[in-house]
């Protein structure tokens, strides 16, 4: 078993990723999706991963969730090596992928049923979460009756219902329009400030990455490597005005340069 000393702090409940590589076989020879990726995340920390599409962000997330086996390297979650799918993880995808035949409430309860957790006490949890996400009045609706943003909020509730220690989000707002997306950023931070999960969120929006995160992992594509890890020294709670803070713009600009956006 791996030790959980994560360099600087060594918090319990952290994710530790060590020299992770992933090679996919393909028709034109092997494709290196990730190369020697290492980082650590502390308990209750909000970390975002930003980079071009094809830089292996999603691959990285799937490996941490135990859905993919790395070619080399290791992942430890809360001090234990990841060798298969982790039920201690809540996962949110780009699409809400709610079950269209279940009401919002029953969708949120799905993990409880699948993990055979007691239904009674978790019904209250589900209701609390839905209230927190502003969906309590819609709990008896079917997903198709809700807007994309509301569906994604329901998906976040579903990811949190079984009280996982990790929240993994793979471009969760990528399919939403810009206004809804900004709204969702606030919603997510509000939910996060209440529930304080260790959160790892993948995005290709630099400003979203900076706005949400304590630290931003910047990745370069082909093969996916870490270009830099940047501390975001902005006060919480983050407000709309946060985006006007010179430290915010400076951070965005710096990351843009790392990724290779020359016009920033």
């Amino acid at each position, binding site marked *: 078993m791996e030790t959980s000393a994560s360099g600087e702090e060594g918090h319990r409940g952290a994710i530790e990723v060590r020299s992770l590589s992933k090679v996919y076989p393909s028709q034109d020879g092997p494709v290196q999706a990730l190369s020697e990726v290492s980082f650590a995340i502390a308990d209750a920390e909000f970390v975002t991963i930003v980079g071009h599409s094809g830089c292996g962000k999603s691959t990285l997330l*799937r490996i941490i*969730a*135990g*859905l993919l086996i790395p070619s080399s390297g290791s992942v430890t979650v809360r001090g234990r090596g990841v060798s298969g*799918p*982790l*039920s201690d*993880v809540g*996962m949110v*995808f780009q*699409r809400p*992928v709610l*079950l*269209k*035949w279940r009401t919002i409430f029953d969708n949120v309860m*799905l*993990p409880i*049923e*699948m*993990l055979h957790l007691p239904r009674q006490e978790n019904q209250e949890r589900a209701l609390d979460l839905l209230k927190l996400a502003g969906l309590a009045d819609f709990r008896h609706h*079917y997903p*198709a*009756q809700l807007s994309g943003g509301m569906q994604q909020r329901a998906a976040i509730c579903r990811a949190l219902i*079984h009280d996982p220690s990790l929240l993994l989000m793979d471009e969760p707002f990528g399919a939403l329009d810009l206004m809804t997306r900004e709204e969702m950023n606030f919603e997510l931070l509000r939910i996060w400030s209440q529930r304080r999960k260790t959160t790892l969120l993948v995005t290709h929006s630099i400003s979203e990455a900076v706005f949400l995160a304590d630290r931003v992992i910047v990745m370069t594509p082909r093969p996916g490597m870490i270009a830099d890890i940047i501390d975001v020294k902005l006060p919480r709670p983050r407000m709309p005005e946060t985006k006007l803070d010179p430290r915010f713009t400076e951070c965005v600009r710096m990351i843009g340069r790392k990724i290779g956006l020359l016009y920033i």
Partner: protein
Amino acid sequence: MGISKTDIGTTTISIIATLAVWELLTRIFHIPGFILPSPSAIFVEAVTRYPLYLYHSWITFYEMVVGFLLAAAVGVFLAVVIVYSRIIRNMIYPQIVVLQIVPKVAIAPLLLIWAGYGLTSKVLLALLVSFFPIVVNMVTGLVAIEEELLDLCRILHSGRWQEFSKVRLPNALPYLFSSLKVASTLSVIGAVIGEFVGGNEGLGHLIIIANTELRTSMSFVSLFSLSILGFLLYGFVILAERVCMPWEKWQSASA
């Protein structure tokens, strides 16, 4: 798709118009009844001998409904087996396709030899004619799951049974019902083919008799009865679909 009063009105008027033109043509041109009976003659035939038609309709309806229900059961079962076992898929899928390609009319005489001239052979034919689309659609429905949902199932450590019952099966329902609609109309064909080939009951049998005796109005009453039966079964499927998938109306509203 809502049905308005105008929709019903248009349909009714067009049916009445067709019948009126038909009636007029047969009278104006003095078309003999054994070639094309007038609607009124067909109506008189239906009313005066309704016990006969009711009895044979019941026989045909029984054959097609039992054949249809068996087709649904067999089709769903085969689809599940095909999806979950590679070996069985390789063993039976090609044979199912071959069976589907062989014209059922050509198999009918064989079935009569094996299952006799009674109802069983007709039920089997209805089953054979209608099960194929159910298998194909059901397989598609069981497999067409979003990748992320399967990831979610793995994260939540759902076993095969939970993944099947909570995700795959409900996901397949819309596919299943669209195939059941097709199958319900096919099962009529199967039952009638069986009655054509042999036996002494059912609307198919009546049509054969009517033809040999040149009692064309009897043929027409049998034909109309057949379409009513097919329509009834189709209606039941639609009803079952609404009951089983209450979420679908929102689905189509948003799509």
